[in-house]
């Protein structure tokens, strides 16, 4: 797909509009489909007709499915946009939101919280957030010497810290009694089933401002793609821009992971697909990742709820199972 028209604003609006439509459709599907009943018709009547709705159906849709769909939307948007930002800042297409030790650190926090038996929200979420922030600080300190925020040292530190965290995670799992293992495994594979409106409000408040700031810096990310020195010579304040973007995207990814657990591959797959389709301009990619990543996660969560005959699969399993083959397919297709 190419867009010969040059005006960037109209491209941004057009791409955003298309993805907003896709997102709206996926939200509707997410609300209409589930294990207890299916039906777009019922949903349609409830939203658009004056008739008093069935209170049970109403509860299922607005109390159970709606917060879950919103959580999926936001986590998908955050992880995709986070991946996009990390790939631009570290100028490495394989960077992902978890690369700076965010996943390892928050997993340790969350597992410790689960073992201690504190409540899922805000208890475990707070522990996970604290864990990810702690590892982030360690990674930044490790990689910052005289040449602060060097891309390779940061990447390496992240890999090392994540490996170290995996060892601690395995240790914690090995000393855990069997009743807690299920909830630990669900957290590690990404779980949206316990979402409620409190979590939604919390996550919306903490991530939506981040999206605005990231969009504001989207053209600076374009300039950064030419390399630090080039960007510098074009008047970009490198330290300021990379600092702000790193802190903001790490913060929003940590907040999301703390709430929903680890959902793999989203931060890698969605930005890559968007880049293959729309090119490297971040002014397009940021809105495309926010809206498209949100839609992707809503659909993945829908599949996670519907595929098994009984119960459900963790959404992280679905994101990885769809994401990896799709990624390879697009990569092959894009190369030829």
């Amino acid at each position, binding site marked *: 797909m190419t867009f010969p028209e040059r005006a960037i604003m109209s491209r941004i609006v057009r791409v955003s509009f298309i993805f907003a439509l896709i997102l709206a459709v996926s939200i509707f599907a997410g609300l209409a489909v589930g294990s207890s009943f299916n039906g777009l018709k019922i949903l349609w009547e409830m939203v658009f007709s004056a008739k008093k709705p069935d209170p049970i159906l109403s509860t299922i849709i607005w109390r159970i499915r709606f917060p879950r769909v919103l959580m999926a939307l936001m986590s998908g948007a955050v992880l995709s946009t986070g991946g996009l930002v990390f790939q631009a800042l570290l100028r490495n297409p394989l960077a992902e939101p978890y690369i700076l030790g965010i996943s390892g650190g928050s997993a340790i926090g969350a597992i410790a919280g689960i073992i201690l038996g504190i409540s899922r929200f805000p208890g475990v979420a707070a522990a996970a957030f604290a864990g990810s922030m702690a590892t982030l600080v360690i990674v930044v300190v490790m990689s910052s010497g005289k040449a602060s925020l060097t891309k390779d040292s940061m990447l390496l530190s992240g890999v090392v810290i994540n490996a170290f965290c995996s060892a601690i995670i395995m240790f914690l799992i090995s000393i855990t009694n069997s009743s807690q293992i299920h909830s630990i495994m669900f957290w590690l594979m990404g779980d949206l089933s316990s979402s409620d409106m409190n979590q939604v409000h919390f996550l919306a408040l903490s991530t939506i401002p981040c999206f605005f700031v990231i969009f504001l810096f989207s053209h600076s990310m374009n300039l950064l793609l030419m390399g630090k020195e080039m960007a510098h010579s074009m*008047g970009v304040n490198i330290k300021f821009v990379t600092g702000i973007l790193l802190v903001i995207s790490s913060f929003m990814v940590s907040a999301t992971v703390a709430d929903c657990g680890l959902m793999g591959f989203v931060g890698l797959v969605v930005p890559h697909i968007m880049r293959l389709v729309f090119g490297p301009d971040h002014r397009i990619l940021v809105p495309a990742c926010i809206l498209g990543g949100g839609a992707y996660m809503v659909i993945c969560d829908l599949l996670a709820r519907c595929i098994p005959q009984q119960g459900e699969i963790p959404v992280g399993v679905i994101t990885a199972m769809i994401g990896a083959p799709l990624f390879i397919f697009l990569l092959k297709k894009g190369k030829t």
Partner: protein
Amino acid sequence: MKNAIAIHSLSYSYGNFSVLSAISFKVEQGIFFTVIGPNGSGKSTLMKILAGILKFKKGKISIAGKNLKKYSGRELARHVAYVPQTISAEFPFTVEEFVLLGRSPHQGMLGINSEEDHLIADQAMDFTDTGTLSQKKIDRISGGERQRVFIARAVCQQPEIMLLDEPASSLDLAHQVKLMDLLERLKNETGITIIMVSHDINLAAMYSDAMILIKNGSVIKQGTAAEVIKPSILEDIFGCPFFVDTNPAGNSPRISPIPAKFKLNRRAPHAS
């Protein structure tokens, strides 16, 4: 003639390793100026300082009559464009998108292009003969084309001074001359001051209005090509014998290094 750049006793070091020591020189406005010298002499460091990338502590630099330290990053970028040896092209922009990035010091934060920006980019591409490539991806064009696109981006920045670090070193002979012709045309038609780093002395001699020769961070000689390119000076700097004559196609000095076996041949006729 006004000075585009005036440098007064500039020193720079990476940690304890001194790269430039108290160098001073001036570059007149609108000329083609080259900095020549052996590898590791501090040429590239000098360029990065002038581009505002490296912050210097000792010395004073004036650009267009104003202290370099008084410029903000964006303001400096409106006066000075920098073309390094290579630019990362890992993320494939089209040629047009890439050239348009040159407008960013003149734009707001989101870099929204006006009609005028597009016009300037089109002119820059026409000037550098890259207009036909405009919709091609930057990682799918040849090395010679890519170098011209890098210069188009710098032209699009509408600077008064263009800094180039070895722009021709990765190109074959024909493309080297084509690129240098382009830079000369740029100087003549737009009045941009060209400051180029090169270790290709012959290429520099053919195009430069003035040059300096630096070694170990000090200015050894400054002047026109004919004044700087002399065997007595160069042999000392490079530690290798040279033969200098005049380019038969023009009037610039031409330098040829003399390998050991040629030296023997040169002596042979006299011996017999």
